[in-house]
């Protein structure tokens, strides 16, 4: 999906909720590895004041790191206040781990400074690319799944993890194109990158559903083929259906991963099957375009929380290739 725009300067007439003093991150209530196995929400600018004022009961929050790479200002100060009360995860959208030209050292340094300042519980990025010939294209673009691309991805992950001094999570992408010269399936590419670099996985269930539809593969086979013991976070989000006419004039659909709606029932179903294998895991509700009022977002997160709570009562069997785990009744949980 394109990276959402979150750069507006608020009008000076708005009521000031966030005022100094800045809060030192070292006083934060939560330790570094404290993202709970609950539902979290993506923290977006329109909700920050409300989150600070009302302190909603949500397990944790995730930001897009690039929205906070400013030298200073009210946004960073607000983030430090949020960090005092919530476990925080930093999700990158601009590092471009799949770029053949390697990583931007300045950008790595800016990210490191942000991580040092707010000490996130998790840091993650995408298995995709955004930068070519120095230009940032503001989208999470697909890689060909070749040995060459895998070697480049692993070199870049190694570079990032050595600068950050800690493990990253890498997220499976959603995509609309596949390449004729790919040499392996996406799950093998993901699994091999994790194995070679020691990074963890961020499993985006909506992305699996979207890509499975767009490239006609089986979502459950994808999940079964991954080393699930490396999954430390799950994402769920909404998507929409776009219709194209093929050469015979017949309607064909592509799922567009816009993070702009409630989670599709088929994605909740897949999420439930994933949880049955994985056990409870930090799960993020992402909503980036047509951002709704906070209560709508929290209600979606509450669905994930109910599914997680059910799963907590069922022994997890995180063994790939074992499908016969009891699956909770999703319909009942949704009521």
């Amino acid at each position: 999906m394109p990276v959402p725009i979150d750069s507006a300067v608020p009008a000076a007439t708005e009521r000031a909720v966030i005022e100094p003093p800045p809060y030192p991150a070292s006083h934060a209530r939560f330790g570094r590895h404290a993202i709970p196995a609950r539902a979290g929400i993506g923290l977006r600018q329109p909700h920050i004041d409300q989150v600070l004022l009302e302190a909603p009961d949500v397990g944790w929050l995730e930001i897009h790191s690039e929205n906070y790479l400013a030298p200073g200002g009210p946004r960073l100060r607000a983030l430090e206040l949020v960090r005092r009360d919530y476990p925080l995860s930093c999700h990158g959208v601009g590092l471009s781990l799949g770029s053949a030209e390697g990583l931007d050292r300045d950008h790595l340094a800016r990210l490191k400074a942000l991580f040092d300042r707010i000490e996130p519980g998790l840091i993650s990025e995408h298995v995709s690319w955004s930068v070519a010939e120095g230009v940032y294209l503001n989208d999470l673009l697909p890689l060909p799944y070749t040995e060459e691309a895998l070697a480049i991805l692993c070199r870049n992950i190694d570079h990032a993890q050595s600068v950050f001094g800690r493990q990253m999570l890498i997220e499976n992408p959603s995509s609309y194109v596949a390449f004729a010269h790919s040499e392996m399936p996406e799950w093998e590419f993901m699994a091999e990158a994790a194995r070679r670099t020691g990074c963890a996985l961020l499993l985006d269930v909506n992305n699996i559903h979207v890509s499975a539809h767009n490239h006609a593969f089986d979502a459950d086979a994808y999940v079964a083929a991954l080393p699930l013991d490396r999954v430390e976070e799950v994402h769920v989000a909404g998507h929409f259906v776009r219709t194209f006419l093929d050469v015979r004039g017949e309607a064909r659909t592509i799922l567009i991963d816009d993070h702009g709606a409630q989670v599709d029932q088929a994605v909740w179903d897949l999420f439930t099957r994933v949880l049955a294998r994985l056990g409870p895991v930090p799960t993020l509700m992402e909503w980036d375009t047509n951002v709704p009022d906070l209560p709508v977002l929290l209600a979606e997160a509450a669905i994930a929380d109910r599914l997680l709570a059910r799963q907590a009562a069922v022994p997890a069997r995180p063994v790939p290739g074992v499908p016969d785990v009891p699956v909770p009744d999703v319909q009942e949980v949704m009521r």
Partner: protein
Amino acid sequence: MTEKAAPGTRGTPPLADLQARFKRGLLTGDIVDATALILGGAVEPNDRFEIYRNNTRASLAQALATTYPVIQRLVGEEFFRFAARQYIQIHPPMVPQLLAYGGEMSTFLAHFPPAQSVPYLPDMARLEWARTQSYFAPDAEPVAAGRLAAVPAQDLSAVQFGLGPSVRLVGSAHPVFRIWNAHQGSEAPSFKGLSGPDYTLIFRTGSHVRVEAIGLGLFAFLTALDQGLTLAEAAQTAVEADTGFDLQGGLTTALARGLFATLTPPAP
């Protein structure tokens, strides 16, 4: 069925070649080289690639519209989208944080032929860019008024002030502050019959960016201090620009707004 051209056939490493082809296709619309690499299936490669192309162009145009809301209202959404497409091709983002994207808009508009009928657009772009820069500028403790009072009288004229990181000064021969101000409400703005010049002070206080009109004297005074001139030299410059400049009032305005980050007395 067209022959699929393998990436890397021009001597470049395959992935670098693929990414260069995609970049060209996304920014310029020359998509043949990129779509040649894509599997079709139920949906054609061109249709699949267009999803990315629309994403890139629409999201970058939205980033520009977010930074330049008044420009967009002045020229209309359709013209803005048209201008943004040209801008994105000439000045694509070179850093991945979009809060830093769009700084060439003033220069771009000054040389964009379809925009020449609205001569104040480049200065309006400077004002709006200054506002974004101010919002994301580093934090700094302002110099308290008491610091100046503590300077011995004989040293006052040689004191130097450094402006805070969020302070921006935008001078224009056009009435850009008043036009900008007229666009802050939701109702249709009226700014007919205005003429320049306008001098605009932009600074951050607490969580907010303030935008204020100031006189030529104070504008010249602050600009001179920013260039490293002493208090006496800056006051002289301000009086030359505007004989009515009031040094006491100007200093009070600046200190009350916390515009100074440093105060340097002369070396003993």
